[in-house]
């Protein structure tokens, strides 16, 4: 039943849904037994998936979105109690014995997990693993199965499949492994593909490739798709219907355009308002949802969202609303007062009044505070064995120049492995540079001894990405926040006092200072990290992916806090991030890095409006917009392949191996220049500079 349609444009529905239900979930509940009593992870979830349809399930961490699908697949641990019904093509699968359910898994449902490394067998070649799946479902010879494996790899967009089939999973990059998993799923010829956060671990340009492969898989097999993700943008572009989960329940579901444009549940509205958007107005303040999601062992009596909902009334606290129809067809919402949400925007409901006016960015950015000239970092690769000779170098950062001005936010953007975090750490001398200059207010930092550097730590501080790893679990919060003061010789009592003030400054209760980090949620911990960085009253704050580990609704609160602090304390931020939407919202200027070099830099507004470097263009067009209509209509510039190894970067322009312009838009003679001559970072007017021999502006938004 292989239906091969021609490869159409990205993002459009490849398959026409019809009415036969392939997966029907009714009143599914999952409880886990735990020491703290039963954890009610999923509570009465129902949905129907029709043939060829794509359903998106969105929710923050702990909303039960993954557990619900794992329950259908029979993949939950033994301490889970599952009730309700799940029918695959009319056949009940809940409660089936292991041998039966694995047959269903193999033939009817294919699952794609977040981490592709664990779903592939490391001791077989990828070709063998795909061929195995083909042989399990078709009576063909080995040679034919091998041919089919090649064909499938080509379908999911893996270049040079003839070479790749002979490779082992560890030899492939994360994006390629995920595409191999998709190829295996296709070989199984399933009716349903369940993809659980399939692109969360991947970079945006690779994410675009994997989502494209997923589309190809649906075209090829005609399978229905359940796409589980926290990313509203991914959902907007790739599904027909969406279900929003909160506190273990589906709180809103409907056609994707309907839900995105006129949400009928305050939580959905809040999520959309918390999201910094690539296509939004930069001056609009984000509207975070207050509070944190409920603990699974202590669900509120009424609506699970009531404690965080600005609309909540007495009825909401007593009575849990059922998922009921709204005025639009197929659109359901679990809110007593969903009718009141007609025409209400996120700012009306979640805004704090002051924000609605919008903030004026009239920051007179002053003199340069921190200047970096031609900074280089090479990590030696050493041979194994006793001598540990140097056999090569990883060129993590290859000659970067930056200038951070007073009261300014400069964003350093790039995909993983581009050297942005290494650069950030070198500025603080947490990693020693190989060569280059770092100057802070006229004073060179790069050759100071650790002892001479210590007083300057007052001026430059850092906030880390992972709010779990960056706080010592054995210290109380007050000790943590006061520690920098103690290091610089402050008395214990005075340090504790200051710690209280600092906690207050970042919006935490100073009385919680005697608690330990694990008692706080992710967003609160990140605030603790910020309070600690501010303890020495620095002038420059390096923010290394400060919000990427946080859920959307919490992330918005931290972003607002950072903006307020900058305003209040006159800080300069170096904001390292891979998330262009956040960067566009918070930064004044942006520098885009690729493989250790800056490829484009300029004022935020201009850089996003008309990026000139092909890499920036690809990055911007790869960010999914949380808007179903615009997301499906946008022009895309796709890049192929993966980032080359920084141990052996390409000659000339480092981006040329993936550059769409190099591949399609240049003559032979022009290409020679890209191969032989590394492009310089040249000014294209008003501070906008790029490093491309053949740059030209493209409007993407």
């Amino acid at each position, binding site marked *: 039943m292989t239906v091969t349609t021609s490869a159409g444009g990205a993002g459009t529905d490849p398959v026409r849904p019809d009415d036969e239900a392939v997966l029907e979930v009714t009143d599914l509940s999952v409880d886990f037994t735990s*020491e703290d009593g039963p954890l009610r992870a999923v509570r009465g979830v129902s949905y129907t998936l029709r043939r060829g349809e794509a359903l998106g399930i969105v929710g923050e961490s702990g909303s039960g979105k993954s557990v619900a699908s794992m329950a259908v697949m029979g993949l939950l641990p033994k301490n889970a109690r599952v009730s309700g019904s799940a029918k695959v093509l009319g056949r009940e699968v809940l409660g089936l014995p292991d041998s039966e359910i694995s047959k269903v898994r193999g033939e009817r449902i294919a699952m794609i997990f977040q981490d592709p490394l664990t779903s592939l067998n490391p001791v077989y070649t990828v070709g063998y693993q795909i061929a195995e799946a083909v042989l399990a479902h078709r009576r063909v010879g080995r040679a034919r199965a091998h041919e089919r494996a090649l064909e499938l790899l080509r379908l999911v967009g893996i270049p040079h499949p003839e070479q790749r089939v002979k490779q082992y999973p560890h030899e492939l990059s994360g994006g390629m492994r995920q595409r191999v998993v998709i190829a295996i799923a296709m070989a199984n010829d399933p009716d349903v593909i369940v993809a659980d956060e399939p692109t969360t671990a991947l970079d945006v340009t690779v994410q675009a490739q994997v989502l494209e492969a997923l589309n190809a898989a649906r075209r090829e097999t005609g399978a229905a798709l359940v796409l589980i993700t926290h990313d509203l943008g991914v959902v907007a572009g790739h599904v027909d219907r969406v279900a929003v989960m909160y506190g273990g329940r589906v709180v809103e579901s409907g056609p994707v355009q309907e839900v995105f444009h006129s949400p009928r549940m305050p939580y959905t509205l809040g999520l959309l308002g918390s999201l910094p958007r690539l296509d939004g107005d930069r001056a609009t303040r984000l509207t*975070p949802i*207050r*509070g*944190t999601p409920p*603990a699974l062992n*202590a669900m509120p009596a009424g609506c699970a969202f009531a404690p965080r909902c600005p609309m909540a009334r007495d009825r909401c606290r007593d009575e849990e609303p059922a998922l009921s129809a709204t005025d639009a067809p197929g659109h359901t919402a679990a809110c007593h007062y969903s009718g009141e949400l007609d025409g209400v925007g996120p700012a009306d409901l979640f805004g704090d009044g002051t924000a609605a006016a919008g903030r004026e960015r009239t920051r007179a950015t002053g003199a340069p505070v921190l200047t970096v000239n031609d900074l280089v970092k090479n990590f030696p690769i050493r041979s194994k064995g006793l001598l540990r000779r140097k056999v090569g170098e990883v060129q993590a950062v290859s000659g970067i120049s930056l200038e951070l001005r007073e009261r300014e936010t400069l964003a350093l953007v790039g995909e993983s492995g581009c050297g942005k975090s290494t650069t950030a*750490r070198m500025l*603080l001398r*947490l990693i020693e540079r190989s060569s280059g200059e770092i100057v802070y207010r006229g004073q060179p930092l790069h050759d100071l001894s650790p002892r001479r*550097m*210590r007083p300057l*730590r007052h001026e430059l*501080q*850092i906030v*880390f*990405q*992972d709010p779990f*790893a*960056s*706080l*010592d*679990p*054995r*210290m*109380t919060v007050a*000790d943590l926040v006061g*520690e*920098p003061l103690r*290091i*610089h010789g402050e008395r214990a009592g005075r340090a504790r006092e200051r710690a209280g003030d600092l906690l*207050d400054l970042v*919006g*935490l*209760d*100073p*009385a*919680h200072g*005697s*608690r*330990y980090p*694990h*008692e*706080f*949620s992710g*967003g*609160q911990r990140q605030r603790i*990290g910020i309070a*600690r960085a501010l*303890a*020495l009253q620095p002038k420059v704050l390096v923010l290394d992916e400060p919000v990427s580990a946080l859920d959307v609704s919490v992330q918005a*609160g931290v972003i*607002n*806090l950072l903006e*307020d602090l900058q305003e209040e304390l006159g800080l300069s931020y170096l904001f390292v991030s891979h998330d262009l939407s956040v960067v566009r919202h918070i930064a004044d200027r942006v520098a885009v890095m690729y493989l250790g070099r800056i490829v484009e830099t300029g004022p935020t507004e201009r850089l996003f409006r008309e990026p000139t470097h092909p890499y920036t263009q690809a990055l911007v067009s790869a960010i999914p917009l949380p808007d179903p209509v615009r997301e499906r209509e946008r022009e895309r510039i796709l890049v192929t392949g993966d980032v080359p190894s920084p141990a052996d970067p390409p000659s000339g322009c480092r981006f040329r191996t993936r550059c769409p312009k190099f591949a399609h838009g240049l003559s032979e003679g022009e290409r020679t220049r890209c191969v032989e001559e590394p492009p310089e970072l040249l000014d294209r007017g008003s501070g906008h500079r790029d490093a491309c021999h053949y740059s030209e502006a493209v409007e993407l938004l």
Partner: protein
Amino acid sequence: MSEKTLPDTGPRARAEAVGGPERTQMQMIVRRFLRHRPAMVSLAVLAVITAFAFLGPHLWAWDHRVHGEIPPSVPPGGDHPLGTTRAGHDVLGQLMRGAQQTLKVALTVSVLSTVVGSLWGAAAGYYGGRTDALMMRVVDVFMIVPLLVMVAAISGTVRGGTTWWAVSLIIAVFSWAQIARVVRGVVLSLREQEFVEAARAAGASPWWIIVRHLLPNAAGPIIVAATLLIAVAILLEAGMSFLGFGIQLPDISLGRMIDDARTAATTRPWLFYPPGVLLVVICLTVNFIGDGLRDALDPRQTMERR
């Protein structure tokens, strides 16, 4: 702390009421330890044994020496509740003295080698590179030279036994290396954590980081290694005594007593079982106390246990 996370006060919102009274770190650790039942029972038992070992000799009629009035090889009962040896020792008197010497040796060894080993291992792990290689080669030397062979070699030059202090010192010299290796391994992974980098960014010196961050976070493995070491030290001391270097007659230790009674286990069980059982009980209690300490020092442990 019943709740997993605290209520978020929202962006820049003012403080709300705290749940639960504020306690200092020390009070919390003590509270958590007090609630660890096996550890508390063990602590009580160890206290009794310690009193028995240190106060007992002052109260009991016989000490650990040979006395003419003591009849040889009498089974337990009457004047000698635990019987007597062939040479004319009172076994109860010997047991008290033996437990005392053994406790002294075991605790001294444990403290000495844990302190030295932890600092050495943490420094090696934190500095890494050449320093690490050099420091760990020193550790290797101490690990590969067999203690008993060394002792046998030295004992040729030292006559007439030594005090418990010298014995402890020798055992410590040869056992800190194990702790150092364990701690280095833990520190190697800990030092890559972002909270260590955060401390460096705040200007902390290496020793500040080692003492404030690395060692507290390595407390679990350190305590486990230290409690195991106590058992090992007791056995090593017995072995050394056998070779003629440890505590010598007429002074006595538990190891020594067990060693002397090896052949009498079936014929005169009263010589073998009292020191044997006491030794096992000491090792067990120390292990449970170690467990309790490890849990109490870890703030992530829930306070209610068992």
